[in-house]
């Protein structure tokens, strides 16, 4: 049952836990069981463990097939729904902020260091921000995992959390052969 997982390709267990929680809440236990079977994974995940990236990809693939939706849409939906759960578990990251933009800007300096406290060895993506325009952000995302859709989902979720409209466009995307994803975000006031 214990799988030798190297950090480089490992996903933190919480990612699976959140997904499970959302799927069960929205679609029931049976759907989660069916997804696990369809993906061919054993479904034993705890928030403190590390699990293969491939497991997540397989689950997303299974959901995509079952719902006949693009994988990115599944991932985006997951991200958007994961954010309120994160806010529930880690209110301290959200409390100091009154809008989504300020919250997002603290990812590199505060949230990711805190995440590393909880999960020693966690590989968190580094974002570069262009915050030169008020009410807007341009996020430079580079990751082997190419989970820009997850980032989009989380951004939308942050908008929901702070009661703001968030508009997202990607002028560059690694899925389209670019070397990075450039996520352009507009926040309503």
């Amino acid at each position, binding site marked *: 049952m214990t799988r030798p997982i190297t950090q480089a390709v490992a996903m933190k267990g919480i990612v699976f*836990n959140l997904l499970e929680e959302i799927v*069960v809440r929205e679609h029931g*236990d049976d759907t989660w069981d069916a997804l696990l079977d369809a993906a061919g994974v054993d479904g034993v995940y*705890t*928030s*403190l463990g590390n699990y293969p990236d491939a497991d997540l990809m397989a689950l997303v693939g299974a959901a995509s097939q079952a719902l006949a939706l693009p994988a990115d849409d599944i991932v985006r939906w997951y991200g958007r729904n994961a954010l309120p759960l994160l806010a529930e578990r880690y209110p301290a990251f959200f409390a*100091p902020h009154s809008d989504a933009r300020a919250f997002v800007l*603290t990812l590199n*300096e*505060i949230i990711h*260091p805190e995440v590393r*406290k*909880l*999960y*020693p060895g966690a590989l968190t993506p580094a974002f570069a921000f262009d915050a030169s325009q008020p009410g807007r952000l341009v996020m430079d995302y580079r990751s082997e995992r190419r989970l820009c859709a997850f980032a989009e989902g989380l951004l939308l979720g942050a908008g929901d959390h702070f009661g703001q409209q968030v508009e997202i466009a990607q002028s560059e995307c690694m899925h389209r052969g670019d070397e990075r994803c450039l996520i352009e975000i507009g926040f309503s006031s």
Partner: protein
Amino acid sequence: MSDALERAERRRARERAARHEAEAISERATRELYEQHERLRLLRTVARAANEAASVEDALSTALAATCEHWSWQLGHAWLCADDGALVSTGLWVGRERFDAFQRATEQLRLAAGEGLPGRVLAARGAVWLRDFSRVTELPRNQAAMVEGLHTALGFPVLVGSEVVGVLEFLTERVVEPDEGLIDLMAQVGTELGRVVERQRAADRLVHQATHDALTGLPNRVLISDQLARALSRMRRDPAGCTAVFFIDLDGFKAVNDTLGHASGDRILREVAARLQQVVRPHDTLGRLSGDEFILVCEALAGEQPLAEIGERILAVLHEPFVLNSEPFQLGASVGVTLAAAEKEPAELIAEADAAMYRAKQLGRGRCETYSEELGARLRRRSELERALRSAPDNGELRLHYQPEVELRSGRIAGVEALLRWERDGATVMPGEFIPLAEETGLIVPIGAWVLDEALRQARAWERDATIAQAPWTSVNLSVRQLADPEIMTRVADALARHETDPSKLLLEVTESVILDDVEAGLTVLTGLTQLGAGIAIDDFGTGYASLSYLRRFPASAVKIDRSFIATLEDSRTLAIVTAMIELGHALGLIAIAEGIETAEQLAVLQALGCDLGQGYYFARPAPADEIAALLREDEQLAPLVLGTAPAQTG
């Protein structure tokens, strides 16, 4: 839904909740462990810096960086207490690049207890947490914090015991709730840093002690020389201004010390230091060399002109009366000054200023003299002479000549006066040329010891010489300095014992001035010498200042009438004085010896007055021992010859 299915779903939900709780507990434990580990790491970093840092600044820098990194705070800065207790910026920052305005606002501040965040820490002697700095409008840097978007601030003290010696402050753009764990940790950091400050202070104290005079707190010779060396090297780089060295020596300070005691002397020296402080400009260096010698180094002077002015100011402040035990009295000072040439050494310049000061003393004290090359040349001759004189006894360059003291009644040689000669490089140096220097430098003590020893050796030799019918006594001069030598009694006793000389054959000549400085001490030594069996003659009688009441107690057996009286005997007033001196001497039971008899007329007069003995070229010039021995052997022929040439007594 069937009951069984519902139960199964409830069970599943329960199990999931239990799993979440287990995960949460585990996460908390992981987090705590991580934080504990990080805190220990921070403390270890600071402790290592505290142990190894070369300076307080190094340790503070390390602590700032480690703390900012550890807590992800954007800005860290250190304050240290100045001498007056106010907090001033150390200029040590972490993250200042992003917070320019706040840095500028900070570095111009000087905060007393209670002022600003650091001042509050100083007053509280403990950490102060401001949840939102930018909202506390009474803080001096409130505006800057607002502009920079800084919110939460933490200040905590660097403590040595319970004394706040510095404050570290950290700021962040976030709003952070007070964290007791963080405050506890930073208290430990503050204590660690306090150790460094304490260590630095101990080191500074040692350096201060090594470079300052404990009595006045002024720089000592070490620091003065160092400052002077720096001034000289500045002059070499930028020869625009002049540097002058003043050497200040109090006039009459020794008397204060001797008569009023050292505690009073110390109070005077502190007062002198305080007065001189008023004279000096902010960048001048005032120091105390030793005793009552002070040095003032003035830089960036516009030529020689201000020298006299500064000298006058020094003389003026020290001329003001001092008050001790509500008694005013005057001291004054002699000042020497030299204008520094960049290529000279500090010690050289101090010696030049010293020489100029010495010149000021010679010219009557209470004045300021400037060093010149001519003065330097004189000084070099003098120091060369001193060096040569120091080695003269060991080099066998000292000789004794003897001049007979003749009984005027019989013409017999009753005694001889030992007179010192210095054979230097084949020439004879007369006492007048080197005795004053020997007196000043204290060389008179070893030289005098040599004279006594040699004279007693010769006296014993004459005693044993069968060809000499009656050996003369030997007169040996003792100076004030020699009599003040605590060893004088033992020296004389030892010399007498060494040569087994009859003590009654030793006549010690002292001037009246030996008892001027300290009457009781002088009389005690003289009495002690007579108890050894030696006689005492009062030399240069009539030229000193001794009062007749001292004469009453002076344990003398002879008076020597000064040659200046004998040379003017034809003057009726002189004659009257000499007559009185001889009569006074006789009345006190003293032998009268006239010095400097050069003519038969003088001899005749002195014979008529009943003077007991005479000495002078008329009888014999000072000569080496062997020539004197010849005279002693011819003694019986010499006496009638002497008497025969004297004119008949009138009367």
